C-alpha cells in the first residue's frame, strides 16, 4: 500500500492588507506519494480459505472405530432382515419367488459386502509400534573449526530430521573428523559424560566400510538384530533403528531413531537428498580449506 500524503496549503486572505486586489483564496494542493519498498505492506490475501472436512477429521481420530463400522452395519442389517421376516409372519426362506424375498436377498447381499469390507479393513490395519525413549545424555557438540554457514546448515539438517522423523541422535563424520554429535548420546559408565566418537575406530569398522563400498544408504530397521551394533557405541543402547547415509565417499551420517521401522520410504528419500546436499557443501569447504593450507605451506 502506498502512503499518500495530501498536503494542503491554503493561503488565507488577510483582511488587514490594504490592497484588495486579490480577494480570492489560493488553495494549491500538493499530493506527495511516499512509497518505499521496505515499508510496503503486502496486499492482503484474497484467496480461498481451507475448509475443515469433518468426516476426514473424525476418521483420522477414531481409526479403530471407523474400521469396524462396516462390520457393525452389516451385522445389524442381517439381523434386521431376519427380524423383519419373522415379525411380518413370512417364512424365512431364501428364494427369489416373491418380490419380498428378492428385496431381502439384495439387502442380505449388501450386508455381506459391508461385513467383508470391514474385515478387509481390519486386516490391513498397520501395526502400531510404540517409540522407546533413548537412554543417554542430551548433547550438542559441533566441531569448532567450522564456519558459521556450515554449522547453520548442519543444525538445519538436525532440526528438520528431529521434526519430521523419529530421529533422536545424529552424528556426522567427514574427512576423518567428527563434525557434529547432537541429540541423545550414550553415557559412558566411567565418567557419566557423553561417549566421544572414535572416528578412527568407526572408519576401520565393517559398518562404515560396507556403506562406503555400496555407496548407498543403509537402513537398519531393527538395530537389536544387527551384529555390527557394537561399532556404534556412541548411540544410546536402546536405539531402535539407524540410517547410515554416506556423504559422497568421504563421510557418513549416522541417524538414530526411537521406533523399530520408524523411518518410512519417504524419510529415506529425503535423508538421501539431504546427504547429497551436505556432501556438496562440505566437499567444497574442505577442498577450499585444503587449497588454502597448501598455499600457506
Amino acid at each position, binding site marked *: 500500500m502506498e502512503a499518500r500524503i495530501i498536503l494542503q496549503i491554503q493561503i488565507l486572505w488577510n483582511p488587514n492588507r490594504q490592497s484588495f486586489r486579490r480577494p480570492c483564496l489560493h488553495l494549491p494542493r500538493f499530493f506527495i506519494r511516499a512509497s518505499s519498498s521496505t515499508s510496503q505492506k*503486502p*496486499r*492482503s*490475501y*484474497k*484467496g*480461498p*480459505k*481451507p475448509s475443515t*472436512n469433518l*468426516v*476426514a477429521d473424525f*476418521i*483420522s481420530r477414531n*481409526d479403530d472405530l*471407523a474400521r469396524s*463400522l*462396516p462390520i457393525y*452395519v*452389516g451385522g445389524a*442389517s442381517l439381523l434386521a*432382515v431376519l427380524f*423383519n*421376516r419373522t*415379525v*411380518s409372519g*413370512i417364512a424365512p426362506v431364501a428364494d427369489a419367488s416373491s*418380490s*419380498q424375498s428378492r*428385496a*431381502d436377498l*439384495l*439387502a442380505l*447381499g*449388501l*450386508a455381506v*459386502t*459391508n461385513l*467383508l*469390507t470391514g*474385515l*478387509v*479393513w*481390519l*486386516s*490391513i*490395519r*498397520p501395526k502400531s509400534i510404540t517409540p522407546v525413549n533413548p537412554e543417554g545424555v542430551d548433547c550438542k557438540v559441533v566441531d569448532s573449526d567450522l564456519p558459521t554457514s556450515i554449522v547453520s546448515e548442519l543444525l*538445519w539438517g538436525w*532440526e*528438520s530430521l528431529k*521434526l*519430521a522423523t523419529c530421529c533422536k541422535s545424529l552424528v556426522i563424520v567427514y574427512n576423518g573428523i567428527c563434525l557434529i554429535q547432537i541429540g541423545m548420546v550414550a553415557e559412558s559408565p566411567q565418567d557419566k559424560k557423553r561417549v566421544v566418537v572414535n572416528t578412527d575406530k568407526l572408519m576401520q569398522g565393517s559398518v562404515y566400510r560396507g556403506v562406503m563400498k555400496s555407496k548407498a544408504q543403509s537402513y537398519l530397521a531393527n538395530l537389536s538384530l544387527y551384529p555390527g551394533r557394537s561399532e556404534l557405541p556412541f548411540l544410546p543402547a536402546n536405539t531402535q533403528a539407524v540410517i547410515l547415509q554416506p556423504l559422497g565417499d568421504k563421510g557418513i551420517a549416522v541417524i538414530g531413531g526411537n521406533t523399530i521401522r520408524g523411518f*518410512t520410504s*519417504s*524419510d529415506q*528419500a*529425503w535423508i538421501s*537428498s539431504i546427504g547429497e*546436499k551436505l556432501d556438496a557443501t562440505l566437499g567444497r569447504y574442505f577442498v577450499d580449506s585444503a587449497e588454502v593450507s597448501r598455499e600457506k605451506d
Partner: protein
Amino acid sequence: MSIRICNLPFNSSFAPQPRARISSRRSTRVFARTENDTQQQLNLSVLRFTFGIPGLDESYLPRWLGYGFGSLLLLNHFSASVPINEPQLRSEALGLSLAAFSIALPYIGKFLKGSVVEQRTLPEEGEQVFVISSNIGDSLKEDLAWATYVLLRNTSTIAVLVSIQGELCVRGYWNCPDQMSKAQLHDWFKKKVDEIGLADVKETLYFPQYEGSSASWDILPNGTRSLFVQPFVQDINEQQKMNGFLLVASTAGYAYSDKDRAWIGAMAEKFRG
C-alpha cells in the same frame, strides 16, 4: 487360549497377478494352542483378493455393488404388483440405505491409516519452466535449485514456487504464457503472486481437494488437486530472518500427508535464514 485360523495363502495381496484369478475356493486348517496373551490372532488377509485386471481398483468394489444392488432393488420395487405390503417396503428401505452406505465406503476408506495415496499425473499440455530471479546471490540460487528439485522428486509435487523477500523461484508445470524471456516470466509471476496476496499469508494453507478458484489462481496448471502454502514462520524476536513463502501443487488429491507437510516446513525453514 488362542485359536489361529491358518489359510493357505491365495492371492493375499492387492498386487495385480499375471493371470486373472478369482479366489473362490480356499481350504482352512484350524488349530488351537495355549498362549499367554489374550489377543485372538485371526489371519484375515485371505479376504483380500484381486481380479488381476490391471487398472481395476478392487477397493471400489463396494461402490459398484452398491450401485448395482441399489438399482436392482429399485427395479424390483417398480416391477412388483401395486399394493406393496409393509414388510417389503421396510426391507427395501433397509436395502437402499445399505446401498448408500456401501457407495460411501471407498471414500471413508481413503482416510484410514495406511491407505494408498493417489499417484500424481503429469499435465498433458504445458511445459516445465524454471525461473530464478536475478537479484539472488549464487549460493542462494544453488540452494533454491536443489530445494525445488528435491520437492519435485520426493513428494507428488508438479509445481513449486518459492518467494524470498519478494524474489521468486518457480519450477515445474505452470500455466504461464510461452514465448516470454526468463526475466519477463519472472515479472509476470511476481505480478500474479502480488494479486493473490500470498505474501500476506500467516499460517499454512492446505487444500486437499482443490477445485479451481478465482481468476488470479489460473497460474496453477490444469488438473491441480492439492495445494499447500507454507509461509516462513515469523518470530518477533528474530529480526534478521527473511520473510516469504513456499507453494507446492500436485495433481493428486490428498497428496500431502502430515509427514510430507513436516518435510516441506523443514525446507521452508532453510530459506528463512
